[in-house]
C-alpha cells in the first residue's frame, strides 16, 4: 500500500473511530463544564469533581460496588477455574455436552432473565430456609458470581487447551500426586489466565446494572444503579465527572497491562535470542 492509502479507507477509519469515541470525548469535555445545564457550555471548571467527592450517596454506592466486584470476581474465578479444568482435562464423560452447554448459557442469556430468575430463587429460599435474609450486598455478590463465572471458565478452558498436557504428565511421572501437580505446575502456568479472568469478572460486576437491580435490597445500591436513577431525574454534570473518572481508570488499567505484557515479551525474546546465539558459538 505505502503512501497510496486510498481516500475511502482513511475516511472509513476516521468515521469508525469517531463513532466509537466522540460520545466519550464529549462526556469528558462536558465534565469540566461550569454550567449546571449539561448541554450549555459556559466555561472551564473542576467544581463537579469536588462536589462528586462530597456526595455520600455516590461514595457509598462506589464502596458497595467495589466490595461486590471483589468478592464476586474471587468466587467466580475459583468456580470458573474448576469448571474450566473439568472441561479441558476430564476427557469425555456422561453429560459433558449438557455441562458445557449449561456452562456457557449465561454468556448468551438475556440479563433480565438471569436477574429475574435469581430474584425468584432468593425469595423462595428465604421463605423456605430463611437464607439469604433479605436482599443486599450478599445476594448481588452471589448473582454476579453466577454469571461472571461462565466467562472465567471459558478463559481458563482455552488456556488449558493451549497448554502442553505432557508438562502435567511429566510432573506425575516424576512422582507428584495429582493435587500436587495442580498446585505446583498447572496453577502457576495458567496464572495469567486466572488474573485475566478475575479482572474480566471484576469489570463485568462493576458495570452491571440489570442483574444488580433485581437482586439488590434497600440498603445496597451499586454505582451503576445510582448513575441510572440520577440520570432519570435529569443529567447532572456530576455524573459526567464520575464517568470521566471511570473511563480514566479503565484506560490506565488497559495501558498498564499492555505495557507489562509487552515488556515481558521483549525480555523473553531477548533471552531466547541470546540462548540461540550462544549455541551457535559452540
Amino acid at each position, binding site marked *: 500500500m505505502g503512501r497510496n492509502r486510498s481516500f475511502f479507507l482513511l475516511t472509513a477509519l476516521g468515521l469508525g473511530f469517531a463513532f466509537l469515541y466522540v460520545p466519550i470525548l464529549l462526556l469528558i469535555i462536558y465534565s469540566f463544564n461550569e454550567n449546571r445545564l449539561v448541554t450549555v457550555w459556559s466555561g472551564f471548571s473542576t467544581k463537579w469533581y469536588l462536589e462528586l467527592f462530597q456526595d455520600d450517596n455516590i461514595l457509598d454506592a462506589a464502596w458497595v460496588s467495589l466490595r461486590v466486584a471483589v468478592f464476586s470476581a474471587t468466587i467466580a474465578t475459583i468456580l470458573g477455574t474448576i469448571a474450566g479444568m473439568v472441561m479441558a482435562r476430564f476427557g469425555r464423560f456422561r453429560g459433558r455436552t449438557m455441562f458445557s452447554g449449561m456452562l456457557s448459557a449465561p454468556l448468551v442469556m438475556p440479563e433480565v432473565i438471569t436477574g429475574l430468575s435469581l430474584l425468584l430463587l432468593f425469595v423462595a429460599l428465604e421463605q423456605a430456609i430463611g437464607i439469604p435474609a433479605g436482599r443486599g450486598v450478599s445476594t448481588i455478590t452471589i448473582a454476579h458470581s453466577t454469571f461472571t463465572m461462565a466467562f472465567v471458565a471459558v478463559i481458563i478452558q482455552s488456556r488449558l487447551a493451549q497448554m502442553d498436557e*505432557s508438562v502435567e*504428565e511429566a510432573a506425575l511421572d*516424576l512422582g507428584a500426586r495429582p493435587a500436587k501437580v495442580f498446585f505446583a505446575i498447572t496453577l502457576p502456568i495458567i496464572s495469567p489466565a486466572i488474573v485475566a479472568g478475575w479482572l474480566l469478572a471484576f469489570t463485568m460486576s462493576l458495570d452491571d446494572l440489570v442483574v444488580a437491580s433485581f437482586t439488590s435490597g434497600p440498603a445496597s445500591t451499586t454505582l451503576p444503579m445510582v448513575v441510572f436513577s440520577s440520570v432519570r431525574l435529569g443529567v447532572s454534570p456530576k455524573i459526567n465527572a464520575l464517568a470521566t473518572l471511570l473511563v480514566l481508570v479503565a484506560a490506565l488499567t488497559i495501558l498498564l497491562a499492555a505495557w507489562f505484557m509487552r515488556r515481558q515479551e521483549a525480555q523473553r525474546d531477548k533471552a531466547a535470542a*541470546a540462548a540461540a546465539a550462544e*549455541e551457535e558459538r559452540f
Partner: protein
Amino acid sequence: MTTLAAATRTRTKPIIQIQDVVKKFGDFTAVNGVSLTINQGELFSLLGGSGCGKSTLLRMIAGFEEPTSGRILIDGQDISGLAPYERPVNMMFQSYALFPHMTVEQNIAFGLKQDGLPKAEIKKRVAEMLELVELGRFAKRKPQQLSGGQRQRVALARSLAKRPKVLLLDEPLSALDKKLRERTQLELVDIQEELDVTFVMVTHDQEEAMTMSTRVAVMDAGEIIQIDNPHAMYEYPNSRFVAEFFGSVNMFEGVLDEDEADYVTIQSPEISSRIYVSHGIAARQGQTVWVAVRPEKVFIGRQAPDVTDNVDQGTVTDIVYLGGISTYMVTLDSGKVVRVTVPNITRQAQADITWEDRVWIHWNPESCVVVTQ
C-alpha cells in the same frame, strides 16, 4: 565405536516383560497382542510409522494408559494399576515438557523433592546431573532462555535425576536439527553406558534406531513385526515391510522355481535373468516370494559381467550425487527401476556412467534376502 560396543554386549537379565498386551480406544486397536522382553542395560528402540502403536506402548509402561488386557512387569513386579507416580520408571517427553516457571535447577530437583530427599542430597544430585549434561552454567536459567539442544539436555537430566530402573524416551531427538541430532545420538548412548540404565526409546527414524540401539522392535498396525539387533534387521529382514522400512531396498516379486536345501532359484517378470540365491529358504515351490537387494550390494557397469544369474541391462534415468556416495536409478527393460549406490572413491564423479547410458547391473547370489510376506 561406542555403538558397535553397545551392540555386541550381551544382556540377559529381563527388566521389562510385556505379556500379550492389547490396548483398544473404542473400536480402534492401537496395540494388538504385543509380547516382548527388554533386558537390563539395553538401549531398546520401538520403531515404526505414526499410528503404529509405539507411543501407546511406551505410555502404558509409563502408566499414562492402562492396557485393555495383558500384563507389564518391571523387574519382576506386575505394575498394572500403579499410577505413574508410583512406577520405578521415568519418561523423557517429545516436547521435553519442562516446567516453564522453574529454573533448570528447580526442574531437575522436582522429582527428587517429591521423594522427600534431604536438601543436601538433592543439591548434590542436581549438581551431578548438571555436570553429566554439561549445563552447570545454565542452572539459574528458565527453559525459555535456553536453546533447543540445551532444553533437550535439561529434560534428560530431569528424567535421570531419580535414577529410574528404566528411562522411557519418546522421540527424544525429533525437535533438533539434523547436525545437532547426530551429535546428540552419540551423547545419549554415552550417557546410557555410563549410568547403565535401561533405555526404551520410541522413534520413527530408522537411522536413529540403527545408530543408537542394542535391539530394535519394528512395529506396524499395533503389532511387532520383527525384533533384532540393527545389523540383523538390515541384513536379514523377515518381511517386505521391515526390508522397506529399514533402509532402502530393491524388491523383485517372483515365483519360487527350484527349491533346494542349499540354493533356490526364482523367476521374476521384473528381471530378464533367473534369480539365484545361495541359501535355502522356508517356502514351497510355486509360491510367490520377494527378493530384497540393498542398493549398495548391486554392481553397475558398462561391460556385461561374466555371470548368467542376477543380471540385467537397463538405462540410467537419474543420478543423485550425495557427496560420499552417488545413487543411480537404472530402469530395466521390464520397466522396473533399480536403485544402485556407489561410493565416490575418486574425486571425479563416476564420469564414465551418465544419463541415458545403457548399463549392466548384477549382484552376488549371497547378497540378497528372500521374504515370503
